[in-house]
Each structure stands twice: as C-alpha cells, then as structure tokens.
C-alpha cells in the first residue's frame, strides 16, 4: 500500500517535471521566432521613415542630389532584399548612406533648426537603436534556449523531441557601428 503510494507520487512528480520542462522549451522556441520577426518590424519602420526624411532635406539642400539619391536607392534595395545575408548587406549600405546624409546636414543651419528634421532624426536614431535591441533580444533568447538544450536535465527532453540549437545573429563589423548623430 505504502509502496504503491510512493510509486504513484514519484510518477506524478515526474510527469509534472516533464510537462514544465517541455513547455518551457516550446515557449522559448516560440519567443525566438517572435524575436526574429520583431527585427523585421523594426527594419520596416526604418524604411518607412526614409521617404519623409528625404523630402524634408530636399527642401533645404536640393542641390545635394547625389547624397539624397544614394539614400533613396539604398532604401529601395533594402526593401527588396531577399534572404538574411542579402538583407544584412543592404541594411549596411543604407546605414552608410544615412550617415552621409546626417553628416551633410551639419552644413545647413536652417535644416538643423527645422523641427520636422529634428523629429525625423530622433525617430531614425531610436529606430536604429531598436533594430540593434531587437537583434540583441533575439540573441539573448537564443542564448537562453541553447543553454537549456545543452544543460541537464532539459537536454534529455530536448534530445527526445528534436529541439535543435538555434544560430545567433551576427552583424558585420560595419553594422555594429550605429550611426550616432551628434546634437
């Protein structure tokens, strides 16, 4: 009788531990997917801001045609880019073009005083931050997930149900430099 109860308790506990660990892994895996799509959301936001910025700058510095065209072109290429590698490449080019645009604005005091421009500048800076932060969050989540998959005891369940390790997002050296704009 007593042995029966002990066996029952052990089985119930084992089932609970199993369910909790399995669910934990599933939740983390879903969070990784969500974090990955958040990166795209933030990149999209950046693309949406650029036409406005170009229009505003045009009003003050219309003869800087080349720089402006570079930005527009880089933006369009970034929108069309397919696949993570091509996307990262295009975003890097866009970052460079934007940096040039903001460097150029230093020469136009009127532009720098324009509230619309300042607002866009703030928006773009914070969007750059968000892109970086969403990538960071993705990597943090992957770290947590991979830790669980590799450590005892959750590695047993991960092995049984084919939870496989995920890869980190690795930016290129250039992408790590966020175009900081001095005010």
């Amino acid at each position, binding site marked *: 009788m007593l042995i029966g109860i002990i066996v029952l308790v052990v089985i119930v506990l084992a089932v609970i531990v199993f369910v909790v660990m399995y669910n934990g892994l599933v939740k983390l895996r879903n969070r990784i997917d969500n974090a990955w799509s958040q990166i795209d959301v933030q990149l999209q936001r950046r693309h949406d801001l650029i036409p406005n910025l170009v229009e505003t700058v045009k009003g003050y510095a219309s003869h800087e045609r080349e720089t402006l065209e570079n930005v527009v072109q880089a933006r369009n290429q970034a929108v069309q880019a397919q696949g993570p590698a091509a996307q990262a490449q295009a975003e890097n080019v866009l970052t460079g073009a934007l940096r040039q645009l903001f460097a150029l604005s230093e020469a136009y005091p009127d532009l720098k005083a324009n509230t619309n421009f300042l607002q866009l500048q*703030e928006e773009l800076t914070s969007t750059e931050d968000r892109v970086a932060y969403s990538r960071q*969050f993705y990597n943090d989540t992957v770290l947590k997930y991979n830790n669980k998959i590799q450590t005892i005891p959750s590695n047993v369940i991960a092995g049984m149900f084919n939870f496989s390790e995920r890869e980190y997002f690795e930016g290129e050296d250039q992408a790590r430099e966020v175009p900081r704009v001095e005010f």
Partner: protein
Amino acid sequence: MYEQIAANKRRSAFLIFIFALIVAGVVVAINFLISGGVVGFVIAAVIAITLSFVSYFNSDKVALRMSRAHPADPREYARYHNLVEGLCIASGLPKPALYIVDDAAPNAFATGRNPRHAALAVTTGLLEKMNRVELEAVLAHELSHVKNYDVLVMTIAVTMVGIIALMADFFLRFMFWGGMRNNRDNQNNSPLGPLFGIIGVVLLVFAPIIARLMQFAVSRQREYLADASGVQLTRYPPGLISALKKLKDDTTVVHAASKATAHLWIEEPLEVEKQSISTKFNRMFASHPPIDDRIAALEAM
C-alpha cells in the same frame, strides 16, 4: 556582467533568508520568555502582511502621487518614450507608463508591483542634464528594477521589518505590564534561565534596529543588481558610469521625495543622506550604495 548579476541575486536571496531567520529568532526568544511567541507571531504577521498587501497593490499610485508625477506626453517627450520603447524591445518587457516630475534635480524612479503594472518617472532635470546615452543608461537601470521585481522584494523586506517590530513591541508592552513574573516561576528550574532571559530581552530590544539595517542592505543590493542588469540591456557600461558621475556632481535635492520613497530613486534623493553618506555608520542606514562604489562595480565589468 553575468557573474555580477548572478552574485547579486545570490546575495539578495541570502539577505532575505537571514531576514526569515531573524523573524524565527524573535519567535523563539518570545516563546522562551513569555510562552506566547507563536500567537504573537500570528497576530504580527496578519497585521504586517495586510498592511503590506494594501501598499503593494497601491505602490505605483502612492509613489506617483507623493512625488507629484504627471503623465509624459509622447510628442513633447518623444526621446524619453523612444528610449524606453527601445529598452523594452531589448528586455522583452511591456512598455511601462511614463511620468514626469517637475523638478530641477536629476533623478528617476520605477514603481509598480509587476511589469504589467509598472511605471517610470523621471525629473525634468534629468531630461535636461543627461545626453541621450546617459539618459538611456538611467532608464535601463529603472527598467531593471521592474524586471527584477524590486517592488516585490522590498515589500517582502518591509513586511518582515514590520513583523519583527510589532512582535518586539508586543513583548516589551507585555513585560511592562508584569507578564514576566508568571514566566519566572516556570523557568526557575533551569539554572541558565535568567541568563537566557537577559539575552532574549536584549535581542528583542535590538531586533527592530537590526531588521531596519537588513532592509537597507537589501535595498543597496538591489541597486547593484539594477546597475548590472541595466548594463545588460544597453551593453554599454560607460553610459551609466558617466550618468552616475553627473548625478554625483549634482547636489540639488528632489523636493517631492521623502524618506518613504527614497529607495525607489536612482540615487539618494535627500540632501541629508547625501552629505552624511561618507561615514561608515550612516552608510548602513542608506538606501543606496555610495556612487563611487557603484561606478567601481561598473568599471570592473
């Protein structure tokens, strides 16, 4: 960074554990002296937990009203909103309600019982004096208080202080009204009785003070933890270091702060405590560690 976070969490858990031991010690001491310790504990626990529960569920409202905070307009304070949104993405937290305190002294605090009910408040002085990177570091520190459930941790600490203080108070009153006498008759058969009796009384007199000190120790530990986990969000210790240096150089007092809300702010908001923080004794009664020590911890990352 990861080691510092883990070490800070271990130390907080250890402090809370010691806290529980003190509560248990007080129960035992009273039981020994007047054989009513468990009853006293139940009464004290019910009172302290009820009071704490009320304050826990209203913590955000009370703190915000006491510091006269008003909601931050998303257009007027675009940078403030943008920075917090970015940090929320980095931490996976929902965006807290954002408030402004009209005050020239640079400071900030976080409140709310869980991430869904969280609120951040910054003074107008902070927005003026900090550059973007520094402001982000301060906000990351505050958001970390939310992430680490510091309102909950401090509520537990305050509850234990309350239980200990109430029990010690019960006991001293009881003794004053002659409760001791009955007890002596019971204990006379043990030769060590009087000695333990004296030790017990001394412990009970000092227990509330020790509990207070523990509460401040927990508070300081949570500040180190918030610094470390704030940097985990921004991945940029120099930002917080330079923000802390600015806070140190600034000696303005936050007018809307009081002793009751002191532990919430990013640095000691009150002048008195700022000046006297250098002496060892006063340091034990401070809700925040000295800024120099915090900077040293950040530089060691």
